[in-house]
C-alpha cells in the first residue's frame, strides 16, 4: 500500500516531520475517491443549472486588495522585450470571472486553485481548491438560495438556516454588532474570558468583531444543519454592495458554515468602480498600518467595471474543507494528498 493514513488524533504538524517518508501522500486512496465524487457532484450541480465552466489565469497582473489577504508575488517578464514586473498568484479567481460577466457571460463557475500566503494550519493550506460562481441578475436572496442548494447537494444535511450577523451576535454575544461601541466589544470579550492578542488595538472594531465571531458565535453555527450568515457590517463588505437596514448600513455579503467551519463567502456584487477604488485605497491604508505592502489599486477589473458590470451575485467555496467534512476528517492534510509541507 502506498498511502499513508494519518490518524485523526495525530497532532497537526505531522507533515512537517521529514523522516524520509515525506514523499508519501497524507490522504489515503479512499479519500481521493471521495474528492473525485464531490467534484463530479459540484460540476453536475452547476452544469444542470446552465452554468458555463470557465478557466481564468492563476497568475495575473491584478490581485484582490484586502487588508487580511496576502498574495504570493511572482516576478515575471524581463525577456522578449518586456520589462520585469510583478504578477500575483490569485487569492481567488474573482477579478477575471467578473471581467467575463462584464463581457456578457451570464452564469459561470470555475473549479481551480487559489493561493494565500501565510495561511497554514489544520484548516488552511496556502494552496487550496476553490469553487467560485457568478450569476447575472441574482440578488442576495437568489445567491443564498443557490448556496443553500449546493450545500444540500454536497452534504444532504437539510435546508440551510439563515441567520443575520446582527441576530447571531444578539443571540450568542448579547450585543448589536452594528451599533456597539468599540469599548463594549473589548469589555464583552474580556468579560467572556477571551484572551485577546495584546497588539489588538482597542479601536479596531472589526478586529474585535472577528475575535468575538470566532470565539463566541462560530461554535454555534452549522451544528444541526448548514447556517448561512448574512448582512455583514458595512466595514466588512469587501466586494459586496451595501444596503440600508433601518438605522445602519449592512453589506450584502453571506457565508456558509457547516459544523462551525466556514466554507463559503458570497457577495451581491459591488458594481460601482469608484467605490471599489475607494475601498482598495482604504484597504491599502490599513495594510500599511499593519506593516504590510500595499497592493495595486488599479486593475483590469476596475476598467471592466467602468465599462459596465451587470448586477450579479457570486460566491466561493473552499473545496478541501468540503472534502474534509464529508470524509469526517479533522484537518485538511487528511484530504489533500500533498499539503504545503510535502508539496
Amino acid at each position, binding site marked *: 500500500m502506498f498511502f499513508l493514513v494519518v490518524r485523526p488524533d495525530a497532532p497537526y504538524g505531522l507533515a512537517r516531520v521529514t523522516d524520509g517518508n515525506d514523499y508519501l501522500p497524507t490522504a489515503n486512496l479512499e479519500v481521493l475517491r471521495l474528492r473525485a465524487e464531490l467534484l463530479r457532484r459540484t460540476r453536475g450541480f452547476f452544469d444542470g443549472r446552465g452554468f458555463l465552466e470557465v478557466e481564468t489565469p492563476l497568475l495575473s497582473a491584478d490581485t484582490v486588495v484586502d487588508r487580511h489577504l496576502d498574495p504570493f508575488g511572482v516576478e515575471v517578464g524581463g525577456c522578449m522585450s518586456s520589462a520585469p514586473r510583478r504578477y500575483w498568484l490569485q487569492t481567488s479567481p474573482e477579478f477575471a470571472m467578473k471581467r467575463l460577466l462584464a463581457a456578457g457571460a451570464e452564469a459561470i463557475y470555475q473549479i481551480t486553485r487559489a493561493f494565500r500566503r501565510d*495561511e497554514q494550519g489544520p*484548516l488552511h493550506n496556502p494552496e487550496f481548491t476553490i469553487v467560485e460562481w457568478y450569476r447575472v441578475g441574482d440578488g442576495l436572496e437568489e445567491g443564498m438560495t443557490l448556496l443553500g442548494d449546493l450545500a444540500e447537494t454536497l452534504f444532504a444535511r437539510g435546508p440551510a438556516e439563515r441567520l443575520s450577523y446582527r441576530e447571531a451576535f444578539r443571540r450568542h454575544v448579547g450585543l448589536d454588532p452594528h451599533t456597539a461601541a468599540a469599548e463594549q466589544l473589548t469589555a464583552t470579550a474580556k468579560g467572556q474570558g477571551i484572551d485577546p492578542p495584546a497588539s489588538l488595538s482597542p479601536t479596531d472594531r472589526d478586529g474585535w468583531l*472577528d475575535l468575538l465571531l*470566532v470565539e463566541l458565535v462560530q461554535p454555534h453555527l452549522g451544528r444541526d444543519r448548514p447556517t448561512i450568515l448574512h448582512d455583514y457590517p458595512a466595514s466588512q463588505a469587501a466586494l459586496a454592495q451595501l444596503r440600508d437596514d433601518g438605522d445602519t448600513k449592512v453589506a450584502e455579503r453571506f*457565508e456558509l458554515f457547516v459544523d462551525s467551519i466556514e466554507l463559503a*463567502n458570497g457577495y451581491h456584487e459591488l458594481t460601482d468602480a469608484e467605490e471599489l477604488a475607494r475601498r482598495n485605497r482604504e484597504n491599502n491604508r490599513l495594510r500599511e498600518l499593519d506593516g504590510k505592502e500595499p497592493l495595486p489599486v488599479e486593475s483590469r477589473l476596475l476598467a471592466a467595471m467602468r465599462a459596465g458590470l451587470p448586477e450579479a451575485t457570486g460566491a466561493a467555496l*473552499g473545496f478541501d474543507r468540503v472534502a474534509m467534512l464529508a470524509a469526517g476528517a479533522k484537518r485538511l492534510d487528511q484530504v489533500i494528498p500533498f499539503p504545503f509541507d510535502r508539496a
Partner: protein
Amino acid sequence: MASYNTSDFRKGLKVQIDGDPYLMIECNFVKPGKGQALYKCKLRNLIRGTVLDRTYKSGDSLDAADIEEIAAQFLYRQGDQFVFMNNESYEQYELTAAQVDDAWKYLKEGMDCSMILFNENPLSLTPPNHVVLKVEYCEPGAKGNTASNVTKPVKVETGAEILCPSFVEMGELIKVDTRTGEYIERVKA
C-alpha cells in the same frame, strides 16, 4: 536578539517572554476568510513548568530564547551543589539540588547527562534513560521467593531508595529507568 514573527510560529519553537524561556507546545492558526489571522498558542515555561495561553495576531513577534542542549559530565557532589562539566568546552557548572531535582538519585561520578542551557546558564538536566546502580543496603529477601510482584525498598550507591523485587540482594547491580524511577532488571557485574 533574534525573533520569530507569526508566520514562523509552530510547535516546538523556543521563545522568551518576560525574561523566561518558553516552549511552544501548541499553535493553532485561526482565520475567518476575510478577517484577521489569529494564532492561539500554548506555551510551557521551561523553568517553572507552568502553561501559558496566549493569542497573537499576524504581524506580532516573539523573541527567540537562547536555548542549547549540551552533553555534560557529572563530576562530583559537594553538599547541595552538583558540579558538571560541558563535554565540549570543559566549562564547569554548579547546579543546586532544586535544579537537579529527582535526577540526583541516578547521578554517578563520570556519568554523561543531557543539559539544557538558557542564556548559557543551566536550565535543566536529564540523566541517561537507563542507569546501573549498586545496591548498598537492603533487608534480606525471603528465601526462594522469586516472584517479582513482592517489592522492597533498597538503598543504592547514590543514597536513593529504589523499589525492587524481594530477591534483590546487597552488593548486586540493578538497572533503573530514570524516567519512571522503576527497577528494570539485575545486571551481572
